[in-house]
């Protein structure tokens, strides 16, 4: 009884790391710009396909193409920002959040259907030579690929943290989140900060997607599921809290796995959604966030 349960917990942690990574991107974008891009899941999906096609057509290992996936999603982010979202910069907060949500939702339909046309509705997975390898610790199976995903997710988060703490751009982003008027009076170009945050969010989504592609599978319709996951974890972890969001992802992953173990896999998605609703209504600042005035 203990080993299968432990297996579930471990699986939950491994997938939860990707949940966290996906959520951090959305949290960063939303925290800075208040743009609720509900096409985040579709950006993740495109990251997965970028990685998949680089592997299938060019034979390059998916972990090696992560930088190119980053660049590809970065460019997508710039394009989408300039074309669509940048027009919402001047709006008041409620209008910003609502309208960008609607734009994101139209965008998700477009991206999903473009992907369906281009790549069909079949599930794809990136299967490398080492995809089947696994370590076994105390009877618990740890697939090598998913372990690598966990490591990369952590690396990304540490890199993001350092970026925000140490670089000029990162500090400008933090200042804008705290007080955009004071930031602009200090000479910070708010439009540029918005663009940078949006692109960063897109890039993080792309990396998460690439990791999902190699550790699990991708399909054009996965966007909604992952957007919901990112939203759930973002709300769980509290806005602006990178570590909290990552832990929130792990919590969601483990909760889903353990629930599947006891109640069957059919209600996997439901438990996350229920937690989400409870947190939204009763503790909107999340498990780790601070109450904002």
């Amino acid at each position, binding site marked *: 009884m203990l080993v299968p349960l432990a297996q579930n917990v471990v699986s939950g942690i491994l997938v939860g790391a990707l949940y966290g990574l996906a959520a951090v991107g959305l949290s960063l974008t939303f925290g800075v710009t208040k743009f609720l891009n509900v096409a985040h899941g579709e950006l993740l999906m495109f990251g997965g396909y970028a990685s998949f096609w680089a592997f299938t057509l060019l034979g390059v290992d998916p972990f090696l193409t992560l930088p190119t996936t980053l660049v590809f999603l970065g460019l997508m982010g710039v394009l989408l920002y300039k074309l669509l979202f940048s027009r919402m910069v001047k709006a008041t907060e409620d209008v910003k959040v*609502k309208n960008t949500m609607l734009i994101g*939702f*139209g965008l998700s339909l477009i991206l999903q*259907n473009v992907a369906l046309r281009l790549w069909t509705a079949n599930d794809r997975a990136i299967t490398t030579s080492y995809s089947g390898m696994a370590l076994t610790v105390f009877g618990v199976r740890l697939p090598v690929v998913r372990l690598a995903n966990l490591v990369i997710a952590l690396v990304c988060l540490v890199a993001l943290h350092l970026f925000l703490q140490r670089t000029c751009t990162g500090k400008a982003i933090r200042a804008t989140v705290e007080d955009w008027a004071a930031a602009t009076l200090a000479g910070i170009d708010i439009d540029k900060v918005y663009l940078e945050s949006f692109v960063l969010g897109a890039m993080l989504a792309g990396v998460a997607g690439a990791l999902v592609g190699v550790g699990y599978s991708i399909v054009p319709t996965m966007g909604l599921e992952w957007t*919901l996951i990112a*939203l759930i974890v973002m709300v769980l972890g509290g806005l602006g809290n990178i570590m909290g969001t990552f832990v929130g992802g792990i919590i969601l992953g483990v909760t889903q796995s353990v629930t599947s173990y006891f109640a069957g896999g059919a209600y996997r998605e439901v438990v996350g*959604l229920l937690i989400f*609703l409870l947190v939204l209504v009763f503790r909107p600042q999340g498990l780790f966030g601070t109450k904002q005035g």
Partner: protein
Amino acid sequence: MSKKAVALVALLVTLGLLAAFPLLVAAKSIVNLGCLVLLYIALASSWNILGGYTGQTNLGHAAFFGLGTLATRLLWLSGRPLWLSLLGGGSLAVVFALLIGIPAFRLRGAYFAIGTLALAQILYVTVGNVFPMLSALPSQVLANYQLLPRYYLFLGVAALTVTASYLLANSRLGLGMMAVREEEDAAESLGVSALKHKLVALSASAFLAGLAGGAFAYYHVGYYPQLPFSPVWTFDAVMMAYVGGTGTIVGPIVGGAFYVIVKEYLALKLVELHLIVFGILFILVVLFLPGGFVEAWAHLRKALARRAAQRQASLDSGERRAGPYQPGH
């Protein structure tokens, strides 16, 4: 004739035409298309009551639609009369709406939208697990299946939804709903209970969507019970309402009809392309033309009126200048 009288006559003529339509057209496929248009009109209009007039973006509309199909199918196939089954569908939707309404309305704006989306998603997954089997019509029912009554049911539901929208929008309740949409806090301070108006709008929206669901359940021969709960129904309704023009009576009707036309036209060329087209239109509306087709139409009429007035003005001044010929001048 007064504006209201004109509108009433137009409505009756339209209804008459729509009622005569299936009798004049031979092809079943076109009548089926008509059913689809009417269904979409009903869905978009019912969403519009809460989403357009009251300004609460409900992304869980499919839940009401789905619950309507569930209750109606169950009741009808177990022998209950159709009218009772339909009522059951609408009622189940309202009961659910009221249950979740009060906690849901603690959320505002986009958080309400996402919360309702999550809620509908929970229902979608749950129904898929509890009712995984295809719901098929038993052979005797199948043998007696006739398209015409189903068309008229859709027409009735659509007409009821549009009429209810109209009556609500022009009532005192409607005024309150719009006040809540524009400035919720200001409305509250004037004594307009935001929660009460939101709940009324929610209930009307849910009931009518539930009826549409009932019509769907009566119409379809075989479908998976999970299907009507799919978020696609919500997204379609929202897009139709926006592209047509939220917060208007005509908007969802135009949006619904246009959607089906585009879908059918593009289906001839490339399947599913209509979603990309509509997605783009939707974004354009949100960014540049929040009032949708209705607003575009109003702009057009104003521009034409201005052009006509200018022409008239230049004609008048021209006449003054030109004056009758005076010899010697």
